């Protein structure tokens, strides 16, 4: 049911963990559906230089979380914001249809982290 890429990222997730002095933190998902993702970003200039995640969820949730960390590292914030949940799913060679809805939320979590970073900039 899952692609090889999904299983690879599920078994060997990239960039798991937290960033202690993160510049932005984003959360997405809820316990009801069973998927919660949290993402930490470190920003220098307008570039994401480091990114880590923790995810409670199924293989699709873990794999999309892992994949987005690979996709955004080194990207500018504007570039990163253009990534959609669909982009992430495509990068994993697709997800089962039912997972597209419930477990494909990494891009939303990232957007929340970027918004968090930007809101902090404004308040400084």
């Amino acid at each position, binding site marked *: 049911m899952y692609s090889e890429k999904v299983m690879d990222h599920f*078994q060997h*997730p990239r960039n798991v963990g937290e960033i202690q002095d993160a510049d932005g933190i984003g959360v997405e998902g809820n*316990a009801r559906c*069973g*998927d919660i993702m949290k993402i930490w970003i470190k920003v220098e200039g307008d570039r994401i230089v480091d990114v880590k995640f923790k995810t*409670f*969820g199924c293989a699709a949730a873990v794999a999309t979380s892992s994949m987005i960390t690979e996709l955004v590292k080194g990207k500018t914030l504007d570039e990163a914001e253009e990534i959609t949940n669909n982009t992430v799913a495509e990068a994993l060679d697709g997800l089962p249809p039912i997972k597209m809805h419930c477990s494909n939320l990494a891009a939303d979590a990232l957007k929340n982290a970027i918004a968090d970073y930007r809101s902090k900039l404004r308040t400084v």
Partner: protein
Amino acid sequence: MKVVYLDHAATTPVRAEVIEAMLPYFRDKFGNASSVYGFGREARKALDDARQKTADILNAGFNEIVFTGGGSEANNLAIKGAAWEYRHKGGHIITSGIEHHAVLHPMQQLEKEGYEVTYLPVDDQGLISVEEFANAVREDTILVSFMHANNEIGVIEPIAQIGAITKERGILFHTDAVQAAGMLDIDVKKLNVDMLSLSAHKFYGPKGVGALYVRKGVRLVPLIHGGSHESRRRAGTENVAGIVGLAKALELADAEREAVVPKIQRLRDRLIDGILQIPNTRLNGSREQRLPNNINVSIEFIEGESLLLNLDLMGIAASSGSACTSGSLDPSHVLMALGLTHEVAHGSLRLTLGRDNTDAEIDYVLEILPPIVQRLREMSPLYSS
């Protein structure tokens, strides 16, 4: 790779002796049991023998057994068939909130047709209260359906006590004994039931065949109309090989039950005790009123599907009440009925043992599981170590 099958509540392999008993009825003895010539009589004889064997084990009469296309059909026939037949006597039905979907969905259909259904809650151990049941009975209650043992948490419900009340009140009582057969005594007289459902593939028989015990005198509107098979309660040429397989499997299960159950129960207790050594875990459902082969635990901070896939990668076949494994967005209605939170329900693991599981397999699971849990917890935002 080592393979450890721990999902016997989902299905079981067909035993060699059962296949052996079934084989002649596919080729050499292929006759239609309704035909008058030799081939037909041979098939009829096999059907009669299977019906008698099944009836004997249930402590029922020959004509009280209806063979069906599985457990779901048996449940549907009992519930819809009785509700339709006895509509003139009233429109109220009582069941529980933790029934299998093959009971709950027919109930919902009946509600659409104007029947009123009371779904009794269970306590935090998964048990139905006999007292609450007695209070729920009304003048217009025509049917009660409670499962003998739950498919997810293995909890054994007080069927005989409930049956004593329905008997006294003259209300029809059906029990879904699909998970109980092979593990518990399913004597319909002791259980005080009017109808009881079975499914062959849960006790080492073939898939696609089940049976419904229907007490003499109880009438049902058939689901399938056609020929006069199964005393006009279920039309369609009989699945002779399947029915022979069901009876053979039930006969073996019944004969070996007293020897096999203590062995399985010991393995179950080892698994439960071993898993509960992991911090932040809980057993779902009563430990005492529990099927000898069922383990259902919640492992906090992790999600069931991730756990199942990791176990699968190590050759362990298990099941979960997580939404991800149910094809819906909500976790199991049974676990939610126990009062579990969504995240704890999502982190459930069901292991169901069979007659061939060994101590070495339990050792393997208890060796493999803790590091997987640790790894998943370390990547969970809900967990802080």
